[in-house]
């Protein structure tokens, strides 16, 4: 049974509710649901963390996240339909254990559901213009640069269009 791709994505400033995401993708035709939740850790690279500020280029972040979910729905669709995907990223200042990102996908089969979640998470981390500044126990704050071994890096443009 072919179902329409149904992706819903959002950049939000409220707490994320993983159970609500699971409910949002649930469907009597979808026997497999996968979820990923990213939360603030108490330690990063050995430094005690007390919280993280998430900031974004919001218009672009919303657009990129929607594009990624649509790509995943297309890429992991089968004859039984496209996975249903919901993805949310939170902005603002988060404390330890609070969720910054949640991605859920449901499909008739387990592989498309799990593959879709993984794709959205990986691409989100690669392309969506969101930045985080960690607060450390010693009172300092630092913007994280996942591309750098020290200094701010300049990775090749992800998905660059001329």
């Amino acid at each position, binding site marked *: 049974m072919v179902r329409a791709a149904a992706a819903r994505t959002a950049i939000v400033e409220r707490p994320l509710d993983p159970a609500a995401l699971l409910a949002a993708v649930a469907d009597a035709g979808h026997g497999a649901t996968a979820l990923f939740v990213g939360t603030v850790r108490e330690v990063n690279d050995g430094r005690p963390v007390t919280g993280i500020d998430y900031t974004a*280029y919001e218009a*672009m*972040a919303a657009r990129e996240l929607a594009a990624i979910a649509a790509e995943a729905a297309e890429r992991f669709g089968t004859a039984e339909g496209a996975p249903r995907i919901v993805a949310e990223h939170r902005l603002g200042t988060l404390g330890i254990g609070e969720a910054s990102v949640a991605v859920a996908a449901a499909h008739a089969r387990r592989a498309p559901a799990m593959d879709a979640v993984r794709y959205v998470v990986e691409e989100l981390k690669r*392309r969506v213009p969101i930045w*985080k500044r960690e607060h450390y126990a010693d009172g300092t704050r630092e913007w*994280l640069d996942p591309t750098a071994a020290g200094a*701010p*890096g300049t990775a090749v443009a*992800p998905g660059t269009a*001329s």
Partner: protein
Amino acid sequence: MSSQITVTTLLFASYADALGRSSVQVTLRAPATVGALLDHVRALPGAGRLPPAPLVAVNATYATPGHVLADGDEVALIPPVAGG
């Protein structure tokens, strides 16, 4: 057709900290590319802390240095992203 264009350049996160502001209006002689805009931005105070070739988005889409800008474009300098 105007011989000049004005674009809004958005700065985020560490780039905003480096230049001490979150946006700057830049006027350039047309035709102007992303690369020309970057040359202009590099002359601003604090821009020495920017990488040599920062990622750029034009109107919320990633763009190359050769991309030709239009008057009124919203250009963003994108620090290494760190979502999730």
